[in-house]
């Protein structure tokens, strides 16, 4: 009667091969990118010397922090409109991983910032501030879901919060940019995109893509566990009810 199993089945068969592919591809790209970034490319004294190599870890985590919150919001929206169970599973899976990635971003940012600017935290860095608020958004989402009584309520509450958060994120970024622009200090990363020379760009992109694939693989693993948990709970309940 409640045909829950249709969609998740497709996802499970898809992730059977997709997840390992993501892990493999992600690891390869990460290893090459980090090897290049940490040992091969020359150091840039303008950016703080050897410590700037942290950028190869830090920048992708920042991109993923933003991207994963967007993914969370999109999944929440899809669930809210079409009630695809897999979308809710995806949102629930992304949150803790996104939180971890934002934490790594903040940590690596501090590691870079300390020798370069002398402080563990720079309030004038717009991107770091935005990532910090992203961290709170992830934590709030996870805490809210955990506080709800049932799975269905957790999904609904999470969806509302994710969508409210999503439409606020551009405003938060904008206000933080305005705030930090008043103080005229350089951010942790000044070179990005086309301005960066190819020597740095390729390893950076490799790390970025590698991290993304790893993230995607981890999300899928998390989702598979969640789907199995839900199935088990359902079967257990059916057993208790006598059939």
């Amino acid at each position, binding site marked *: 009667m409640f045909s829950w199993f249709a969609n998740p089945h497709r996802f499970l068969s898809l992730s059977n091969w997709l997840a390992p592919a993501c892990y493999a591809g992600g690891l390869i790209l990460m290893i090459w990118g980090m090897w290049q970034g940490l040992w091969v490319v020359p150091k840039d004294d303008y950016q703080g010397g050897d410590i700037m190599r942290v950028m190869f870890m830090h920048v992708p985590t920042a991109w993923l922090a933003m991207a994963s919150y967007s993914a969370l919001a999109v999944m929440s929206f899809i669930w809210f409109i079409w009630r695809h169970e897999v979308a809710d599973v995806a949102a629930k899976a992304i949150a803790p991983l996104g939180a971890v990635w934002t934490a790594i971003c903040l940590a690596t940012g501090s590691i870079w910032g300390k020798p370069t600017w002398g402080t563990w935290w720079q309030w004038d860095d717009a991107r770091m501030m935005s990532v910090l*608020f992203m961290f*709170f*958004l992830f*934590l*709030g989402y996870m*805490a*809210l879901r955990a*506080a*709800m*009584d049932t799975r269905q*309520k957790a999904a*609904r*509450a999470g969806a*509302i*919060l994710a*969508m*409210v*958060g999503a*439409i*606020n994120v551009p*405003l*938060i970024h*904008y*206000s*933080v940019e*305005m*705030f930090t*622009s*008043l103080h005229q200090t350089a951010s942790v990363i000044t070179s990005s995109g086309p301005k960066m020379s190819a020597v740095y760009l390729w390893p950076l992109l490799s790390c970025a893509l590698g991290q993304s694939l790893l993230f995607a693989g981890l999300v899928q693993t998390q989702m598979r566990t969640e789907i199995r948990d839900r199935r088990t709970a359902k079967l257990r309940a059916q057993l208790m009810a006598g059939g």
Partner: protein
Amino acid sequence: MSAQPIFAAFRQALAEAWAGGAGALLPLGFFAGTAVLVPLGIGTDPATLRAVGPGILWVALALSSLVTLERIFQADTEDGALDLWLQTEAPPSAIAAAKTLAHFLTAGLPLALLSPLLALMFQAQASTGLLVNAAYYAVGGLAFYFWGGVGAALSATVRRGGLLISLIALPLYVPTAIFGAMAMTDAPGSQNAPLLLAASALFALAVAPFAMAAALRLAAD
């Protein structure tokens, strides 16, 4: 659709804010207390106090809004009043907005109006600028209450959900806090800040009620 439930909800929330024992005095006391503790903590150097005063008052305004909001929707959920409000002819978003507005008027607005007095305690120069700032606090406070209301509505069924409300509301408060603080400075690039502050409040007024309605329907479900 009818507007009578909306006015009734507004009036009842107003009455309730005053009826609950200390009523509006609680956040007022909190506000004043925080503002008094800060000079004791950071020292009484007039220049320092003048510099941090406006910011501290924003923090106190934000925190005191969270104190009030914790009980708005949770009480209604627990005693069954929410069920009755959801079954009236008015849209839940309007009911939620009316209640939030009522609580802002009884607890938030007085804080904003009290701000010139507190600013003087923070060694600010007495001027009409203080009254302008009071208006900024009022506008910003409105945004705080509406976003906080979203957190309160989502946490309506959570025991001791105060921490959860704060965690949810904090990122949503950021743009208003930034624009509000900037509006009170003369720093270059801050000319648009008052406008942006008003815009962020309007944004909250436009969006938050619908999120609150969805959250309240979930709480009653």
